[in-house]
């Protein structure tokens, strides 16, 4: 044991971030090592491997639950990783809500994992796992709540096929966070007071409305199939009506099937929506940041 510790110090391994150290970006944690990114949606599982240079390589998608897909793909997935570590995006059985005056600070993220009651107070629910995205300029926050049983089942399923989840996150929420940050970074001359942000990720949809500089509404839905464009529009349309005409509408989306995204964007272009989508956006967010 002592020899191992000495070896780890002399090889500088003791100074590298642990594979599951959530305080370090995934790309930095797995610099020079292969890793696997998995997205779990309702009724399908998609994956993508990251090579030693941090570039995306082969990926795939399989219909069915993770518990069914994992044993079938176990050998393939294990060949894509070093040490069995993977990053998992869970895209269903979650709720995103708007909250105000939540605790902020450097230790808030860590505290939310170890002692969520200290951050959320009476809003805390024992059977949920949480993540927070704060409004950069106001006291509003987006609060993600995921079923804890789903997280545990996902972790257990991966453990049975000798994979270790180094991160479990929500892809849709990560895309929303990334888009909000991008919008506020891009608008250095002043953020738009009113806008609508629509995020779609592997059958999940989230719509955030900002009015007069305040987040006013958030709607989300998971388990939407590629044909559910009409359903998505039914969610989006009332929210679009809340903002003044001409207000910016941002769209960000990713998914294995581009049909949903393309058809939805066709409708959104009519209200002047800006497509912030980039190639492999979901994988970039959970595989680099």
């Amino acid at each position: 044991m002592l020899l191992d510790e000495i070896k780890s110090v002399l090889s500088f391994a003791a100074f590298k971030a642990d594979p599951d150290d959530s305080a370090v970006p995934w790309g930095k944690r797995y610099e020079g090592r292969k890793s696997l990114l998995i997205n779990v949606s309702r009724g399908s599982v998609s994956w993508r491997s990251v090579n030693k240079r941090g570039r995306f390589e082969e990926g795939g998608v399989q219909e069915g639950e993770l518990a069914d897909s994992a044993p079938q793909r176990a050998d393939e997935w294990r060949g894509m990783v070093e040490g069995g570590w993977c990053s998992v995006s869970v895209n269903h059985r979650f709720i995103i809500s708007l909250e105000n005056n939540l605790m902020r600070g450097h230790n808030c993220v860590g505290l939310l994992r170890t002692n969520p009651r200290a951050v959320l107070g009476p809003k805390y629910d024992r059977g949920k796992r949480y993540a927070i995205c704060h409004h950069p300029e106001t006291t509003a926050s987006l609060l993600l709540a995921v079923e804890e049983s789903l997280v545990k089942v996902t972790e257990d399923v991966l453990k049975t096929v000798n994979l270790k989840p180094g991160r479990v996150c929500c892809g849709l929420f990560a895309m929303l966070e990334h888009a909000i940050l991008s919008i506020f970074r891009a608008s250095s001359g002043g953020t738009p007071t009113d806008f609508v942000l629509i995020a779609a990720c592997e059958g999940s949809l989230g719509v955030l409305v900002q009015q007069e500089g305040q987040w006013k509404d958030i709607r989300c839905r998971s388990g939407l199939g590629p044909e559910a464009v009409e359903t998505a529009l039914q969610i989006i349309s009332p929210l679009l009506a809340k903002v003044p005409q001409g207000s910016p509408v941002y769209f960000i989306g990713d998914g294995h099937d581009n049909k949903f995204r393309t058809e939805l964007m066709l409708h959104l272009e009519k209200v002047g929506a800006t497509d912030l989508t980039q190639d492999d956006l979901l994988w970039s967010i959970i595989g680099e940041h």
Partner: protein
Amino acid sequence: MNEYLCHDFKTPRTDTSRRLPSSFRAIPVIFYVALVGSSYVMTMDYFNYKRALKQKTEAQERKKLSEEQRDAFNNEKASLESEATKAESVAQWMEGARNIQPIAVKIARAVQPETRITQVTLERSEQVPANLALTIHLNGSQVPNELATIESALGQLLYRSYSAQQTKNGDVVEYHSTLVRQSE
């Protein structure tokens, strides 16, 4: 705004220890620097040791050669000193060994015609060449006077008689003395 970091709500592990601070990287760095430094010093020491051994061997060879030369010189010196000592002895002996012909002439001239010298012996001392053992056999009536005359004559040559002895054997008087050269 800070760099975006994706959220994470996985079940926290309990078997992890805190990562060492980055400043502690100095420890392995110092270790490797010390390793390289000591390797360099040891390598240089090894080469220096080898060079020193070679120099020591060469020095020992030079020392041996020098000692041989010194011994040869000492032997030669001892030989020369021995020769010098001998030569000095010979020189001293030669210096002390003066001609005896004047003594014989003086003795012959000092004796009267009536007195007959039957035997004159002059023996030089080996140790003190300046000393001569004189033996004279005289036959005559005036022998005592002749002996006094002889001693007087020898005194002119700066010889003095010591332990003079006279024995009479019939008509012959045997005179023995040791002639010692007086310093001038």
